[in-house]
């Protein structure tokens, strides 16, 4: 019922409210329910990927001890861990989860513009997840080609899962892209068309901006993955030679001629680099809102923040080959891509400055979401700066394909967005469930996760400097590494297992809150954005009761001089804001 999105609620609308359990929670077209479905599914596969990483770490830390890990399943673990984390967890969670939940609420609409397609998007996504998980159990197992799925090895003997494994991986990706496109069309259209009255683009919270631009990146970049997946599928099943050159594989000529593995890499990274920002931009946006709300201060340099998001989004399409400096592509490309890559550091740095400057002269409440946000700033600075090493083509020479790369992208694309995910879940939990979580438990969760992950990844960079290659099942004895490198690896494993285990705190907290948590205020953080101003708490189907909200100001009216409260919600008209003494001491 697409008109729900913009028609004001009337009798007819009441009629369409879902009333059975199935229409309410399973085949629901309500963006909030779909968001939760997306979120739970993504977190579920994320936990599988976390388990895989624990097994990899066991092998790396203690190479001689665990009988259930052999090189074959080790490579399957790294492949599936990477693929799940990047695509099926982070992309799905930020866009399918947070995008779905926040866009209509923050834009002041009743739902996504196309609720049915939105529902379909989730179910197709679930199908892609099922295909992905099923590939673990087919003969030969899942693919072990690394998450980049580079041909020829992805479809040549010597790699695990070159039959059904890789076929199901590619099929799952294709299905995921269909799901993403259905969702993405919805997000874009909703942001453009279904904002409530008075909500200009520049009054949108940065969360929406981040998700919106990330969606556009996804819509334009995912086709590259689809094209490369289809072409590889052809090479595998029909024996074409798009990517496959003439080779002698294990002494046998498989009959390919003339293809180019580099072509695949270009296509893959044409998707793969924007993908980094598909994950990062929503995190940028969300963390901006968390920082602003909990520091009781407007986000510093809002316009610059919006334009930084747009510039990063645009530039992200012309930096892809920095993943390929040592791939054997024309080396002269290195000049161009190193330059564009380092240029992208400028808008990114501006975002970091503005987050910190938002805290400056703020009134910082160190509640759980804020802790995670500050943790994010720290890890993101670290991850961003190490990116300058790898982006600078010369320094990439010794560091590419080492643990330095692994440490860098986990810091910037793993830890940082995940800290935002946690911060965001804590922040919006009262809105989603109507209940508060346990603050102390939340703080413990933050400290263990933040310090634990730093203990994993800081030392890992140094193993990379020393020359430990990534994707090695075991190092064995070498001349150039000190023996202590293995001890350090073991210590990293201990930290990793510790961090993985402490995530239990999060689940305990959430389950406790659902059952016994105290009822929360409708607006516990005194936030200005629209999702906290819903008439029902948590918001019901249709979000806004009888009347759509009307927006009169931007999303960051915190601590405005001349007003008693230190926040003015977006839907408060200019003349109705509670004026009063500048400030009376206990807000």
């Amino acid at each position, binding site marked *: 019922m697409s008109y729900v999105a913009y028609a004001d609620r009337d009798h007819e609308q009441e009629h369409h409210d879902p009333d059975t359990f199935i229409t309410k929670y399973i085949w629901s077209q309500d963006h909030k329910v779909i968001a939760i479905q997306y979120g739970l599914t993504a977190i579920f596969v994320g936990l599988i990927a976390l388990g895989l990483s624990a097994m990899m770490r066991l092998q790396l830390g203690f190479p*001689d001890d665990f*009988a259930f890990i052999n*090189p074959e399943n080790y*490579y399957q673990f790294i492949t599936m861990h990477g693929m799940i984390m990047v695509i099926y967890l982070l992309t799905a969670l930020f866009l399918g989860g947070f995008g779905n939940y926040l866009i209509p609420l923050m834009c002041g609409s009743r739902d996504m513009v196309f609720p049915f397609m939105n529902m379909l998007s989730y179910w197709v996504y679930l199908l892609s997840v099922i295909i992905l998980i099923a590939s673990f159990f087919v003969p030969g197992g899942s693919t072990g*080609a690394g998450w980049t799925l*580079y041909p020829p*090895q992805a479809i*040549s003997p*010597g*790699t695990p899962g070159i039959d059904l494994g890789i076929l199901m991986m590619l099929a799952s990706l294709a299905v995921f892209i269909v799901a993403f496109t259905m969702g993405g069309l919805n997000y874009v259209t909703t942001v453009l068309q279904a904002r409530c009255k008075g909500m200009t683009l520049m009054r949108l919270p940065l969360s929406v901006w981040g998700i919106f631009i990330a969606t556009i990146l996804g819509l334009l970049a995912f086709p590259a993955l689809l094209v490369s997946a289809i072409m590889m599928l052809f090479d595998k099943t029909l024996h074409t030679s798009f990517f496959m*050159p*003439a080779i*002698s*594989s294990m*002494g*046998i*000529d498989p009959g390919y001629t003339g293809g180019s*593995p*580099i072509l695949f890499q270009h296509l893959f990274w044409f998707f793969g680099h924007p993908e980094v920002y598909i994950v990062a931009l929503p995190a940028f946006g969300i963390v901006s809102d968390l920082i602003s709300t909990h520091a009781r201060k407007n986000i*510093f*340099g*809002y316009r610059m923040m919006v334009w930084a998001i747009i510039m990063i989004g645009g530039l992200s399409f012309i930096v892809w080959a920095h993943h390929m400096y040592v*791939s*054997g592509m024309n*080396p002269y490309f290195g000049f161009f891509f*190193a330059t564009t890559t380092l240029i992208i550091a400028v808008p990114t*740095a501006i975002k970091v400055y503005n987050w*910190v400057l938002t805290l400056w*002269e*703020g*009134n*910082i409440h160190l509640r759980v979401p804020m802790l995670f946000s500050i943790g994010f700033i*720290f890890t993101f*600075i670290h991850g961003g*700066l*190490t990116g*300058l*090493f790898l982006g*600078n*083509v*010369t*320094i990439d*020479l010794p560091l*590419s*394909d080492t643990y330095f790369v692994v440490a860098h992208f986990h810091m910037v694309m793993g830890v940082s967005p995940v800290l935002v995910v946690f911060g965001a879940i804590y922040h919006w939990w009262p809105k989603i469930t109507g209940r508060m979580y346990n603050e102390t438990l939340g703080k413990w969760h933050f400290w263990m996760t933040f310090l634990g992950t730093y203990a994993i990844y800081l*030392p890992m960079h140094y193993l990379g400097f020393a020359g430990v*290659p990534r994707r090695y*099942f*075991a*190092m*064995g004895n*070498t*001349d150039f590494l*000190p023996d202590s*490198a293995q001890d*350090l690896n073991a210590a990293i494993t201990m930290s990793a297992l510790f961090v993985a285990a402490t995530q239990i705190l999060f689940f305990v907290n959430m389950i406790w809150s659902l059952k016994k948590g105290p009822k929360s205020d409708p607006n516990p953080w005194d936030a200005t954005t629209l999702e906290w101003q819903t008439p029902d708490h948590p918001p019901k189907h249709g979000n806004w009761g009888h009347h759509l909200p009307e927006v009169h100001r931007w999303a*960051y009216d*915190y601590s405005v001089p001349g007003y008693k409260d230190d926040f003015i919600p977006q839907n408060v008209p200019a003349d109705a804001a509670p004026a009063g003494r500048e400030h009376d001491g*206990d*807000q």
Partner: protein
Amino acid sequence: MPLAVVLILLVVGSILFHLLSPWYFTELASNWSRVDFTMDITFYVTGFVFVAVNLFLAYCVIKYRHKKGARATYEPENKKLEYWLTGLTAVGVAAMLTPGLFVWAKFVDVPEDAHIVEAVGQQWHWTFRYPGEDGKLGEVDAERISNENPFGIDPEDPNGQDDIIVYNPEAHVPLGKPVKFSLRSKDVLHNFTVAQFRVKMDLVPGMNTFMWLTPTKTGRFELLCEELCGVGHFAMRGAVVVDEQGDFDTWLAEQPTFAEQNSRVAGNAAIGATQYGVCAACHGPQGQGVPAMNAPKIAGQSDWYLKRQILSYKSGLRGVHQDDTFGQQMVGMVAALADEAAVDNVVAHIATLPDNSLEATVEGDVENGQAIYTVCAYCHGGDGMGNQALNAPKIAGSSDWYMARQLDNFKTGVRGAHPKDYYGFQMGLMSITLRGEQAINDVIAYINTL
């Protein structure tokens, strides 16, 4: 407050970790000190930003954390400050990028006088080719690759006749001379990395890639594959040995050319039969192996593998470990084979011996063994028949007690410990998969069924 303290401690701790870490760049052994220099600049710039921004962050958390009655300042933006920060960032970025681009310009521009070494990668093995007297490498073609012509050199091409063939994972280069590594792969992507040289490049099937450097230190430097190339990726090792010019020339002269390789006379089984008498004393007249003498079955084993092992014993790569009692015995025995031709002859004779099946002596859980064997099968084949293209010997039908002992030797480093025994080292890495004696027995019990 604890947050601010922790932030400060993390900054200080990170710097201390950096300064005190024993895990850092290996000592440079090439001309690429510029890479290290660019890295240093980047460290200064990023280090400054890391410290400055995080300390400011900590300061904000201390100074502006919520206090009763406090109120935030209202300041939507500050253009001047933002422009300044943008400008300074741009300067910092330029300071890092500019030297990087200059060094890269050097890297893509190979010196005219660089001599060429071709590195050929395959699953999971390195080989090398040097242009002979003519200074030119012969044409190659993936379709010509075979066990007899592992490089796929065009036999019609005169430039290829004098190409020097190194069919093992150890390359030699002379000190102080620029060398261009021309890189080629037979099957999948690989990557040529020597940590001490700082530079690396992928090997891409279907095309030639390159990188260059000038070695500045003599010694043996480990060569690693750093592009995922299948289950054996981590075991694809080799070495680049940097020699003084004289040593290099001597070494190069000992290596066969393509033409010499092709004109090698096949072993003569009849002559070999006369020499086999020494072997027969332990391995039995039919080469069926004699457990009491600790001599394994050799009949039915691939000739190339037998030859490689005999030569390994002769050159001291095998049978030198103090705990390898039986290997040491073998070293004494192979002395009877004077030269490579003698080895060829005796191997040719062994090839004529009947391959009779043996009684199983090792017991184990076949089902578990089969699960373990999936990894072995990548090289040794699902049927255990071995694959010369992968340098993996036949294991089906071999003496099981002997394989058990060898697997144990590989695991404990009794075999494969010699730095030049690349195949043994490789098998040592693969044998990590076998966790404990029971696993060895299980997998051998399964191999017995093949």
